[in-house]
């Protein structure tokens, strides 16, 4: 009964996760030395997700909580993916508009935009 005793777990699990977080941090710093591109970006996201996952699951004890609490806390942030999506779309539109208006015309004068 983990709930009755509070979150009491063996110390070794914290030392393991601590070590892993150090390792992943070193790896994510290492991505800075890679050339820009899809590989680098994927590795940044991979190590970010791994670190965040271990912190929430083990250090914040989410892995041992009941599903009702897990969904109440981790569910709503999924909505934020929608916000990220629409702002990425909007940002894309804004930069094209700016390039069109503030730099040399992309199309010869007289042509329909």
């Amino acid at each position, binding site marked *: *009964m983990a709930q009755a005793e509070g979150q009491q*777990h063996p110390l070794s699990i*914290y030392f393991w996760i601590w070590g892993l977080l150090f390792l992943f941090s070193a790896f994510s*710093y290492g991505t800075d030395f890679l050339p820009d591109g899809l590989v680098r970006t994927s590795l940044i996201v991979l190590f970010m997700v791994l670190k965040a996952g271990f*912190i929430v699951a083990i*250090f914040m004890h989410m892995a041992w909580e009941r*599903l009702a609490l897990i969904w109440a806390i981790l569910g*709503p942030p999924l909505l934020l993916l929608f916000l990220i999506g629409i702002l*990425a779309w909007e*940002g894309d539109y804004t930069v094209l508009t700016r390039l069109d208006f503030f730099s040399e015309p992309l199309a010869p004068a007289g042509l329909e935009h």
Partner: protein
Amino acid sequence: MAQEGMNPAADALPPEGWRGIVDDWATDKQAFHVPWGKAMMWIFLLSDTFIFTTFLTGYMNVRMSTAVEWPNPSEVFALSIFGQPIPLILIAIMTFVLITSSGTMALAVNYGYRRDRYRAAALMFVTAAFGAIFVGMQAFEWTKLIEEGVRPWANPMGASQFGASFFKITGFHGLHVSAGVVYLAVGALKVLRGDYERRGGNYEIVEITGLYWHFVDLVWVFIFAFFYLW
């Protein structure tokens, strides 16, 4: 903070899984089988998640939409050590400092539940000290960038939005770390003084403080990836 669970027979939990979610939410009773302080801290952290995400999403939007070149964080945050510029090294050290503090915090929570209050308090002070070191390094970083002419409205290295995003995101995070240092120090003093011994040896408060501290570290993971590495 009187706990349920004194009488295990009357306190049998409903089943896990989706059935458990429905049971937990559907009846007029306590929804979360955790102490109220812990549930409230989680809900506060959820609201904080939304704030930090809107900041980071706003940053994503301005970074995508600026037609001026974004400065390379790898060079902006490089430091010269023994005459050799090392990219992003200050931020890497800050990351390790914060990870270290997260580890000492996790141990403090564990010792709290073992009712070893001297070790718990000592580890909380160590955590607070690492937090203070982090804020100190951030102050150094801000000073360096301000001297280089970076402002919330301007930036000599490229896109002005870099300054706005930098001061807003790292400033708000730094504020959280500073508040956490105070929160930890006060909590550690109370643990050391034996306040929770008089309340039946309930050290749930160390875990609640820990939740806040781990969250601050969690936010830094995202800032490090999106602002500094991207």
